[in-house]
């Protein structure tokens, strides 16, 4: 038997990351026969595959988004559970990104590759913490792969929001947050900070947020923003998809103050471009320090870098004596063919 090279196990293709010996793709961007999905964000979890393997939460979210028939068949897998697929073994580990998010370890013979999907090493009350998985090849995201991205403490950002609510009791605070993961994390952080007033939701947030609650995540009293009198919204906090905070929809609020919870808010120009008055640096992706610390800790000698700022992270890996290369996967993050503003929302 010949030695297996990493690229014999996983290879970037036009459809996404392909595992030939296992007969499946990871987070494919086009319909494939067998898909293994890391998490429920729409750029990773798409409808129309033959068979889908993912955590129960990811499958549930796909069902909520795409309807019952989003795939030919589905199979749920738990964290720590190992399955044999063709000639490889597949094991899921928590990624700490959003509820149900997983890193996927693919092993063949003596080689273990971990495809981390999106991950963060920061605490998050709404999902299982990131687990470090020692491996030979680590596939890392690079959404915030530049040393200017240092996210700091999310709880501190939420305190900033609460200070602003106290300072402008006559205004409504609209917090733009991606509707899967970020919104629920912000709500949970607000509750941790002792904020116990009802929190209002944009209609597009309701389904996923209620799903989080059904999985036992305490988010306190939530109300739909729709149908509430304008005056009654003074001094309140409403969570909305980022695109809605610049929309006609905001006219139902008294003198709205626009906040945005995202790692992109670290860069001033980004916040100003969007007309954000209160940038909140809260990210569900690892920051530069998180990425570099994680890469070092996996013990992997080879690093494949995908979606985001690949160049900087590849360069850093090389200065650390690691083999590294960018994986030219298309279809994730900014290069989605959308305007940068829309794509950013997913971060």
């Amino acid at each position, binding site marked *: 038997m010949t030695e297996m090279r990493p690229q014999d196990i996983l290879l970037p293709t036009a459809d996404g990351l392909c595992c030939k010996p296992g007969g499946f793709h990871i987070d494919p961007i086009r319909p494939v026969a067998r898909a293994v999905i890391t998490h429920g964000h729409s750029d990773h979890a798409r409808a129309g595959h033959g068979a889908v393997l993912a955590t129960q939460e990811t499958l549930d979210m796909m069902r909520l988004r795409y309807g019952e028939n989003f795939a030919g068949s589905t199979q749920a897998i738990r964290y720590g559970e190992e399955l044999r697929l063709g000639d490889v073994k597949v094991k899921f580990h928590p990624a700490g990104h959003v509820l149900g998010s997983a890193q996927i370890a693919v092993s063949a013979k003596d080689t273990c590759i971990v495809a981390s999907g999106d991950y963060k090493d920061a605490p998050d009350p709404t999902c299982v913490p990131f687990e470090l998985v020692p491996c030979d090849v680590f596939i890392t995201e690079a959404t915030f792969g*530049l*040393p*200017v*991205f*240092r996210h700091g403490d999310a709880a501190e950002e939420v305190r900033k929001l609460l200070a602003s609510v106290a300072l402008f009791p006559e205004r409504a605070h609209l917090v733009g947050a991606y509707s899967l993961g970020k919104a629920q994390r912000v709500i949970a952080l607000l509750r941790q900070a002792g904020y116990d007033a009802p929190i209002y939701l944009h209609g597009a947030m309701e389904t996923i947020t209620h799903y989080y609650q059904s999985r036992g995540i305490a988010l306190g009293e939530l109300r739909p923003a729709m149908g509430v009198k304008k005056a009654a919204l003074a001094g309140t906090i409403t969570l909305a998809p980022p695109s809605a905070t610049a929309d006609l929809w905001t006219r139902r609020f008294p003198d709205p103050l626009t906040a945005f919870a995202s790692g992109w808010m*670290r*860069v*001033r*120009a*980004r*916040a*100003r*471009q969007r*007309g*954000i*008055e*209160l*940038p909140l640096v809260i990210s569900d992706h690892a920051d530069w320090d998180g990425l570099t610390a994680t890469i070092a800790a996996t013990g992997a000698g080879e690093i494949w870098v995908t979606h985001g*700022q690949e*160049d*900087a992270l590849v*360069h*850093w890996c090389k*200065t650390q004596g690691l083999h590294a290369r960018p994986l030219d996967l298309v279809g994730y993050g900014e*290069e989605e*063919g959308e*305007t*940068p503003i829309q794509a950013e929302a997913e971060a």
Partner: protein
Amino acid sequence: MNRFAELLDRLAYEPGRNNKLRLLSGYFREVGDPDRGYALAALTGALSFKHAKPALIRDLIASRTDEVLFGLSYDYVGDLSETVALMWPKSAMAAHNNPPSPTLTEVVTTLRTLGKTELPKQLERWLDELDETGRWALLKLVTGAMRIGISARLAKTAAAALGDKDPHEIELIWPGLSPPYLDLFAWLEGRSQKPVNRDPAPFRPVMLAHAIEDSDFASLDPADYIAEWKWDGIRVQAVAGRDDGGQITARLYSRTGEDITGSFPDLVPSLRLPGAIDGELLILREGRVQSFNVLQQRLNRKVVSPKLIKEFPIHLRAYDLLGDDENDLRELPFAERREHLETFIAKLDDPRIDLSPIVPFASWDALTAARADPASAGAGEDADAVEGVMLKRRDAPYLPGRPKGQWWKWKRDPHIIDAVLMYAQRGHGKRSSYYSDYTFGVWSETENGEELVPVGKAYFGFTDEELLQIDRFVRRNTTEKFGPVRHVVHEGDKGLVLEVAFEGLQRSPRHKSGVAMRFPRISRLRWDKPPREADRLETLERMLKEEAAEIEA
């Protein structure tokens, strides 16, 4: 420094003018002298530190971080100060000791006295002592590039609010004031008299015009306005005054208040009557106004040779009179100032200084005709140097800044060509995530056959909505990437045609095409036009010949 940094940070995100004013006056009220005075100086652009160049800051960050990572980060963030502030790794010692951060006054006074060689060490210490926001504000301050959407006017308006004064009052005395403005704040808080300006020939902040749109005319009455030619030269202020000994001091200022007297010694003897003229600097040969290209030969010269003076004789064409001897005329209506101006110029009786003529008109149609053909509307042989017409309200006082509805500029139609988008680069600052700098080209027959040659670069003229559209086009039609530059598809039937407007053309060895445009901007997106129908280099060369003929003359 922390309080100032906090102010800048909040201002940077605050879009509303009234909220900005609230933040600023709150700061002036809360913070004592001299910190608030230095803050006012920083916000009005009155501070400059000659040794603190961006290159120095690059050197500092280079000594602490990886060069490649810095380069990628800067390209991404688009702002040097912010990149350094975000990336700066504190020294281990500073992180451990947590030293107190400096005050704004400490920073300003230290920077003023510090020698060039001591500066890097000092900046490094401060960067270690400050947090991210503090570092950002410090670097904005030392490089003098604030760019936080606060005009000097707004900062002065906020200061005026301390004493319920009209900001106009501050503008009038501003040229005689200097940081940290103790006398100004004392007056605003009612603790002393209004400061007076002792400079015999001070600069007076300039009044500017809005570009008029077709839709504006409907609401304007021609009887309320006086029209004059807009000459294609340089707007200047020529001021003469008597010093304490009764001697005349004469100075020439640019529209931003820069003293440019040294570049035009030939005009100084003509400024012998005390007064302040607002006018246009031109080159006159045998009584004829030359084009801007000709005037350009006299700009930014370190040495003004007798030959230059002889070949490019300078001239001042007067628009307005702001002061007549000791009398400040700025509060008078324009029609009255114009009478004073006519008397003043007649009394001066100098061949280098003349009146800009009034363009008579009874209706907007008549003015439209005059603008279309200045030669037969009084501009005569100087018609080529007419850039358009100016409309000034008869009853408008001379108000610094760009007040609404007082002065309008109505330019003649600029040159227009259709060019093809070739390369796009990400913008800086506010536009750092958008491809907003465009290199465009026109068709030419080269040794490789028919191909597009780049003829210029433009980064404004389009609306925000159009920026989004072009950005999307660039991202979807990139053929190659080189760092921040993207090659965008440009073939006969694939690509984007940009209608480019520009003011003039010059021959340029720096451009492959051999021509350079003055003031190019995107005037329209021609989604409808296939690239093969864009203009050819020969069109530009024809325009160039026409312009070049004037310089040689």
